[in-house]
Each structure stands twice: as C-alpha cells, then as structure tokens.
C-alpha cells in the first residue's frame, strides 16, 4: 500500500483519507475494520472503450483519520536545515515553479493540497 507514486492529481481538492495503515515491527498493528464492501467502478465516461472494474473497498479509518495538508508553507533550500541530502522527495515543476515535498514527512500526512505554477494539485504518497 505504500506505493511510491510519481504522479500528481489535478482539479479536485482531496483533503482526507480512508487509509490502510500498517505500523512496522514484528507484530503488524491494525486499526479496527470499519467497513468492507465490493464496489463496481464504472468506466471513465470520457473514454468510450474503457472498461469498468470490480474492487473490494476496505475501510480502516474514518475520513480525516489522517489529516491532509491543506495549507503548505515553503522555504528555500538554504533554510531547509531539517532536510538531509539523501532524503527522498517528490519534486515537481509546473510553469517554471519548482517544489519538493519530503517523502518521510508525507508518510504521515499522505496528501498535500497545493497550487504550483497556478495549477491546483494534490501531491499524494
């Protein structure tokens, strides 16, 4: 479930999450199961040849069980003294506007809602 994801989503403000959450260690801790259901995903209405899918949706946390970042603040590389050189980041450049987001930090927040180069995006990890 920790899928390194090198893409950003655009157009919607995704602010909260229903999350599958595993804490490391020899004993995997699970938050209680809230719901489990089979859903049928319709095909993309914008793509006539697309197929739908059947998925099992497992809910382990309520909405905003992990708080997304709604109002990110930014600093310069020189000010980023809490970052180390080999710290994994997600980096994006849109319309000449470059930003980087710490992956270890995103592991605890999952989603950042931001506007980069004038474009509203959601950075997800």
């Amino acid at each position, binding site marked *: 479930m920790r*899928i390194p994801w090198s893409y950003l989503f655009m157009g919607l403000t995704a602010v909260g999450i229903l999350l599958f959450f595993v804490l490391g260690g020899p004993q995997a801790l699970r938050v209680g199961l809230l719901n489990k259901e089979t859903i049928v995903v319709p095909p993309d*209405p914008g793509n006539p040849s697309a197929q739908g899918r059947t998925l099992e*949706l497992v809910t382990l946390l309520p909405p905003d069980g992990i708080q997304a970042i709604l109002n990110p603040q930014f600093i310069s590389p020189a000010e980023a003294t809490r970052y180390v050189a*080999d710290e994994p*980041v997600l980096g994006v450049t849109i319309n000449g506007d470059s930003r*980087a987001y710490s992956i270890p930090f995103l592991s605890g927040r999952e989603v950042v809602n931001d506007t980069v180069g004038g474009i509203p*995006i959601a950075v997800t990890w």
Partner: protein
Amino acid sequence: MNALVMYDHQSGTLWSQFLSQGVKGELAGRRLETIPLVQTTFGQWVLEHPDTAILDKGRSGSSDRYGGYYTNNDAGVIGESNGDDRLDRKDKVVGIGFDEGPKAFPLSALGDRPVVNDHVAGEDVVLFFQPNTETALVFNRKLNGERLEFEQVVDDGTALLRDRKTGSLFLPFTGMGIEGEYVGQQLERIHSVVSFWFAWSDFYPETELYTRT
C-alpha cells in the same frame, strides 16, 4: 490488491490513488488528470533545480515511519491478491503502460543498465534510471518523427542521454536537448510509477516483465 483511497470534501467521492480514478460516489469513473513528477533525493533535486521551493516540515526529522515496511515482506495491509511470483513481492519496479499495455522494469535489472530503449503500449520509450537516488524517468524517444536510440554518457560527473545516431545530448531530468541537432527541443515525458511488485502485479496481472538479455 491494496492502495490508498482518498475522498474530496466537495462531493465526498472516493478516489483510488493507483487508478487515478473515482471509485465510489458522485464522480465515480471520472479520471483525474495526472501530472508527472520526479521521485528523487533532496540533494539531487536541489542540484537540478537550485531555485526550487521546499515544503516546510517544521521540526520533523528525516526518518520514515514506514521504513520497516519498505524493507519487510508485508504486502500492504490486506495482502496481495494475485501472488505473481516472477519477482519477490516487495521488489521495486518502474511501471509503464498501465491499462494500455503494462510493463514492469525491476530496479534490480536497471542498476548497471541505467538507460533502456523499449516499445511499451504502442510508444517508443526511453527509461532513465539513477541508482543512488532511485530516480526513474521515462520519455517518448520519438522526436520530430525520428525514433532516437539512447545511451548514457557521463560528462564531468553528470549523467546525460545521448542519441546514438546523431550524438545529440539531452538532460535526463527534464528531457531537454542541450547539444546537437535537437538543442532546445523537449522529449515528451511518459507516465510511469515506481511501485512495489505486489501492487503493480495486483492491478495489472497481465503485465509484461522486462528481463535483461
């Protein structure tokens, strides 16, 4: 198969991160427009983009709460559905092609072959991999109707992409031509993801797998 599910405040629709698609609610089925970004290290990113802004994480350190998970044998929370044993479930791959023709490139096969020219989901692609930062970038290697064939060259410690036919040089982090007949021209970035094998093969059971020849 397991992957992150999000919801939006405006409609309450649930969105699958892996599929880039609404899965339940008012906007189910709708695709989100994806924008390519780069998964790399802080040091490498600042080198490539000295004018970048950096997310302020306050006083948080650099350790990842999932550090143990990245290296253990767990396949997400609810385990894998497909169990494709062509690779170990937590091996990392670069995934390309997705619904149009999925193909996975194991990072272990790319370590000493950092540039791969291939044809995936109907496109001529070049995959560039930087092992020390685990950065993977994929571009369309057709430019102005010509199919380019790339190799890596290292100039003063910097890795560059060189087209074998014309000797033209490109920056691998941006796909920008910097020397030769394609100066100032941009290779088109192709959607790719770095993923654990179990997740990729769960979503794309029919995936091709790159093997060294």
